[in-house]
């Protein structure tokens, strides 16, 4: 298979100038196509956000953030919902990030390369595509019913952590894989053992990529409704979980983990299906705040990633 034969059959009858023109044309076509797709995507997103702002922005004020749900749209608020979402996200992050990173590091750096590892790898990738309701059903059967843990913030956090674990594992592995082999070899050459290499060189270099995975995962978790509804999150709740800080020893308290709760997407879901137009405005306002919470969370992660990248240099 020599190239001259191939090229002669393909290039016969074409002048060099024509070929160049053709390449330029297809290049330009792709650029225009890419731009169109980008503009279309941004337009949809922009329209959605504009619609939210148009419907809901005027409804957002201090009272909306500090009131409990109510039968009257005008006095209803999302206090229990945003507190619930925040607490569930804290549990999710505390469980999913360490577990996901540890599993990723093990699979990439420690696990022997054999069929068991391959099997696990394929399954982890497949798990990332399993519909979220399946995780909800698993949590309902295992945590809520078999282990009788109840419909609590802890169970919701575990469920969402399981849901985003594959994303974190894959992100960790990808960012470890992107580190040049030379770094590992250099570290071993200096006499470092495996753990010293991982903790001293690989993890710091992989942190930005891991954080990107965490952003994607947490953004997915914050908007999930189906698994949370399945495990039995409540819709009307007019009290807050017990405070995590107390005045007596040991000053922290984990009772809030066992508290019933609601989250923002459920509150939205409930309001959207109500007959009164006022509730639909509330739902739009809740959507805006959920968007803001996601941005805030991601903003923090991006800031962290930026700082880590700077330190790396």
């Amino acid at each position: 298979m020599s190239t001259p034969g191939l090229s002669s059959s393909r290039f016969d009858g074409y002048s060099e100038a024509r070929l160049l023109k053709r390449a330029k044309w297809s290049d330009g076509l792709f650029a225009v196509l890419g731009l169109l797709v980008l503009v279309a995507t941004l337009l949809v997103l922009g329209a959605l956000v504009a619609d939210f702002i148009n419907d809901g922005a005027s409804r957002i004020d201090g009272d909306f953030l500090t009131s409990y749900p109510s039968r009257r749209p005008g006095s209803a608020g999302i206090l229990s919902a945003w507190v619930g979402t925040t607490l569930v996200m804290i549990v999710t992050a505390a469980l999913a990030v360490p577990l996901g990173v540890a599993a990723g590091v093990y699979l990439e750096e420690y696990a022997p390369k054999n069929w068991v590892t391959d099997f696990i790898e394929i399954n982890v990738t497949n798990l990332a595509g399993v519909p979220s309701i399946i995780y909800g059903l698993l949590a309902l059967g295992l945590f809520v019913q078999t282990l009788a843990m109840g419909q609590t913030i802890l169970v919701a956090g575990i469920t969402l952590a399981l849901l985003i674990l594959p994303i974190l594992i894959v992100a960790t592995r990808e960012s470890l894989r992107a580190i040049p082999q030379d770094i590992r070899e250099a570290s071993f050459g200096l006499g470092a053992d495996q753990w010293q290499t991982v903790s001293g060189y690989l993890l710091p270099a992989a942190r930005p990529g891991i954080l990107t995975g965490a952003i994607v995962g947490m953004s997915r978790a914050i908007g999930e409704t189906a698994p949370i509804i399945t495990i039995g999150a409540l819709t009307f709740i007019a009290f807050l979980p017990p405070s995590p800080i107390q005045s007596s020893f040991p000053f922290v308290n984990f009772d809030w983990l066992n508290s019933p709760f609601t989250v923002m997407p459920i509150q939205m879901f409930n309001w959207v299906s109500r007959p009164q137009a006022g509730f639909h405005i509330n739902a739009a306002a809740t959507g805006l705040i959920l968007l803001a919470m996601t941005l805030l969370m991601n903003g923090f992660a991006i800031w962290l990633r930026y700082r880590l990248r700077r330190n790396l240099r």
Partner: protein
Amino acid sequence: MNLKTYSLLAVAILAITACNKNATPAGDGATNAPAATSEAAPVAQGLVAADGSSTVFPITEAMAEEFQKANAGIKVTVGLSGTGGGFKKFCRGETDISNASRPIKAEEKDACKAAGVEYIELPIALDALTVVVNPQNTWATEMTVDELKKIWEPEAQGKITNWNQVRSSFPDKPLILYGAGVDSGTYDYFTAAIVGKEHSSRGDFTASEDDNVLVQGVSGDVNALGFFGLAYYEENKDKLKDVKIKANPAAPAVEPTVENARSGKYQPLSRPIFIYVNKKAADTKPEVAKFVEFYLDSQNATDLVKEVGYVPLPDNAQAAFRERFAKREIGTGFTGSKIGVSIEDLLKEKLVY
């Protein structure tokens, strides 16, 4: 912070959550058991758990809101699992009160019995299913049950597609149908009342679990006809027109209103909606009994029910169900969805557990 601090922090968080996980089953088992009293975890103190139908949700939500204002120490939670999902939790003893837009079914009765959950059935309001058309529809001001049956029965699928097939005086215009989702209690009751067989109708209509979608559909199409609960019509009177219903060709055409449903004139599309109370919870948890008494209080059961768009029961019925709860009479008076139940019938039912 270096990596060591990070990993230490992560380990600490994991350890704490793990400890807590171990402690959870015992604490929460007590929370969920109906017999739980003062030794339950602090979170559970004075907690009333209600769950179930989305139709009944606004009423229980309003009651819970006002009740918690009047009784500061007691917490009430309301879930939205649907009537069937609500009964599943209720019959496992996980909730104290189950909201239901239809009476308890035979298999749910058996599940409750098997788990030893005794329940008190309390009708708390009426919902008037409303047939609606577009405001520009000038012809369909009243319709008989037979005409509606002709439209909705399974045999009509693909055949009854024009308004003039329903009644010859109607114009030659396509008939576009919207209806409640087939998993809803609303669909079950409507088909039982109109077609004569529960859960049986034509399939070629736009079905949605979200009634606001139906409102949008009918208000945007001159030739549309749809049905849903009265509250959705009342909130959208400017976009929709109601159809008066004649129980039979000789009967007067009755408009779907709170008064007509309450007096029993609006038939057969008025249906009772319920709460079911766990008897053991009512006996052992004073906060549950207190909440149900608040729910049945004549002023709350009239004003709050009306405020959220439903039809309050007549005074004599309210008094009778207050008495039923006071005596803790268990069991249900229903076997499947009954059609055209008048208030008098509701009161005469014999309760079977």
